[in-house]
Each structure stands twice: as structure tokens, then as C-alpha cells.
């Protein structure tokens, strides 16, 4: 007996509830940070969004690998949708990061945050993914080339991260430091709830977009078949 996929509506409701809970926790449960004050609260949103982006890119690469190894038809859209979601969350990471930088240090951008610079490089890389995809005729060639590029993406993540760390030694001395928060129990709880909520939201968005794209494809196939 196969396990049924959880109903999308149920998950969406759960995501909405969790998001509500997490907002409440962020503002009422987690204590205010001594140094940064209210702006530190962005951390509860910024970091989960970044982690979700990584997860989406990873999922996209996994689906891409499945496509190359098994030639299954479904994997192309799944990989593409995952990468699309990852790019959206990546853009959000950059935006929330910029807001946090402005609130903390008064600048909209700093090269000293390795995480932000990494996301900038990845953002460039994955934007090129879409340019690549839409320059090739639909078909198995496009699927395979997209899949290979998606795999290069996940290889680039750790390599770029090392590169950025190494670059810091000669680019300019680190001016702004931000220590990883030493989280109290309440902060950690708020973080986890927020992370769960954002992950679920991403999942709902992924499933919704995938369903939409599949429907689009079927519609086009039907039109093709019915055209005189």
C-alpha cells in the first residue's frame, strides 16, 4: 500500500498556521538582542530563507541527477521548478540580507559577509540557468543540458564558498563582524519554528508551481493534438 502524498491544502494550512506562530514567537517570545536591537529579528527570517534556498538548489540537482540516470519524464519539470524556487529564495536572501545590513551597519551592501557574497555569485549562476534553458528548443537536449548545469551549480556552492573565504584575505580586511548568535533557548525555539514555517511555505510553492507547469504542458500537448 503506497503512502499518499499529503494533501496540498492541508500542508498549506499548516504552513500558514506555523507562519503565524513563528511571527508571534519572533516578536513576543524571543528576547531582543542586546547589540542590534529590533533589527536582529530579521535573522529569524533571513537565515531560514537562505537555508531553504540551498535546499531548493540541492533538490534541483538531485532531480537533475535522476533525470540523467533514469530518463524519467517528470524530473525535468521538478528540477526546473526546484531551481526556480531556489532562485526566488536566493533573491529574498539577498534582499533580507541587505535590509539587515542597512539596519545593523547603515550600508545596503557589504562584501564582508561571506554568505551574502556567495548568494550573489549563486544568483548570477542560476539566472544564467534560465537564460540557458530558454535559449534551447524544448526537448531532451534542453532537459539534459539544464540538468548538467544544475549539477554544476551544487558543485559551485562549496567551491565558491572557499573561494570567497580565501578572497577575504586580500580583498580588504573584514570591517564588520557579526557573530553567530549565541542563542538562548527561546531564540532557538523561535528560529526552529520560523525555519519550519518557511520550509513548508517553500514546499507549498514548489508543489503549486509544479502542478501549474504540468497543467500548462498537458494543455499545450492537447492543443497540439487537436490542431487541424
Amino acid at each position, binding site marked *: 500500500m503506497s503512502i499518499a502524498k499529503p494533501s496540498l491544502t492541508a500542508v498549506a494550512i499548516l504552513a500558514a498556521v506555523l507562519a503565524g506562530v513563528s511571527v508571534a514567537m519572533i516578536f513576543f517570545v524571543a528576547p531582543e538582542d542586546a547589540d542590534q536591537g529590533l533589527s536582529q529579528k530579521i535573522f529569524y527570517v533571513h537565515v531560514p530563507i537562505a537555508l531553504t534556498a540551498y535546499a531548493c538548489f540541492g533538490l534541483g540537482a538531485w532531480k537533475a541527477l535522476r533525470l540523467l540516470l533514469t530518463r524519467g519524464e517528470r524530473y525535468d519539470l521538478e528540477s526546473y521548478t526546484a531551481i526556480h524556487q531556489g532562485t526566488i529564495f536566493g533573491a529574498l536572501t539577498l534582499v533580507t540580507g541587505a535590509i539587515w545590513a542597512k539596519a545593523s551597519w547603515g550600508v545596503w551592501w557589504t562584501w564582508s559577509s561571506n554568505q551574502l557574497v556567495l548568494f550573489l555569485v549563486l544568483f548570477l*549562476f542560476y539566472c544564467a540557468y534560465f537564460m540557458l534553458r530558454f535559449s*534551447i528548443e524544448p526537448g531532451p537536449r534542453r532537459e*539534459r543540458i539544464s540538468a*548538467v*548545469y544544475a549539477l*554544476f551549480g551544487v558543485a559551485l556552492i562549496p567551491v565558491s564558498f*572557499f*573561494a570567497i573565504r*580565501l578572497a577575504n584575505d*586580500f580583498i580588504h580586511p573584514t570591517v564588520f563582524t557579526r557573530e553567530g548568535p549565541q542563542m538562548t533557548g527561546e531564540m532557538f525555539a523561535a528560529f526552529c519554528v520560523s525555519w519550519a514555517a518557511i520550509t513548508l511555505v517553500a514546499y507549498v510553492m514548489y508543489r503549486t508551481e509544479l502542478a501549474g507547469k504540468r497543467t500548462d504542458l498537458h494543455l499545450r500537448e492537447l492543443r497540439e493534438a487537436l490542431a487541424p
Partner: protein
Amino acid sequence: MSAYLGDVAALARKDLRLELRARDTLPAMALFVLATLVVFHFALPGGAGDDAAYGLLWVALVFTALLGLARAWVPEGEAGALDGLVLATSDRSAIWLGKTLATLAFLAVAELVALPAFALFFARLDGAALAGVVLASIGICAVGSLVSAMAAAARGREVLLPLLFLPLAIPLVVGGVGSSISPEPGKYLAFLALYDAVFAILSWAAFEYVVTE
């Protein structure tokens, strides 16, 4: 194994022979890198210092490589020869390796022009810097050949190639500049070697999927 290497050698030889006949890519690359270095002289303000110059050297090398990479698969596209190679080779990765080696040879020739010119115009290059150039060139050609083949399958390939290549080239620039200016070049050279290993293996394994359905 020796049959595989024989295939690679035959394919690389073919590219060298084609370039010797057409003589369009190599002179262009050499002239481009020279012209770029001269532009950089005018682009660098007075007190810029050597470090800035090394940075610009790497910009020049990356964009010169792009020039060569843009033309890499053109002979295969003219009369469908790529299909012929895909049919004829038992292991398609040999096509990638042959092309990478040939492109590396062209880039090396361009560098033989660029590096002395750089030393003359800007600043001297020590052993570590040269080792960085060698290692980074390998990475550029390995990844570049694959990415160029992807772009060749697409519309608007001249524009697409830089977009695909540049994010992947960023770590190479970091490694190259670091090995030129850092007092501890060793870790940058090690990083370049790591990049080469990871992306060469990835490109070698993935090429088959890029040129077949």
C-alpha cells in the same frame, strides 16, 4: 585506455591543424590580450599599485579565454561534424578532452604573449603567479569547453557563453589573483588544484549528456 588516448590525440591534433590553416582564433586572442592590457594602463589611476594590476591581468586572461572558447565548437557546427564525432566515438568524453587540450594550447600561446607584456608594462611575475596561471588555465579550459558546448546548442550563443562561464570563473580569478599577490600563495595554488580536479572530473563525466539526447 591507449585507444581512448589515441582518440583524444587525434581530436586535439585535428583542432590544431584547423587553427593552423584558418589562423583566425590565435592571432585574435593574442592581439586582444595585448590591447586589453594597454586599455588597463589607461584605466588604472596613478597610485593604483601593483596589486590592482594583477587583478586586471586576470580579467584580461578570463576575457581572452572567452574569445577562444566562443570559437571552440564552430568547426563542429559548420557541417554537422559534432554528430559525426558523437556517432564515431565509443566514449564521447574523448571529444571533450581533445577539445580542452587544444583550447589549452591556444590559451597557452596567448599567455606567452600576455605574460611578458604584463611584466613589461606593469609588474613582475614570480613562480607562484606563473603556477597560478597554469593551474587556472586548466580549469578555464576544462569548464569552458563544456559550457561552450552547451551554449553551442542554444540560440544567442555569443551572449550566452559569458553568462554561463563567468560565475564559474570567479573561483579561478580568486585563486589566480591570490597566488600573484598573497605572501602565502600555497593555499591559493592548492585551491586552484582542487577546483581543477572537481570541475574537470565533472565536465569529463557530464559531456556525454550535453551532446546526446
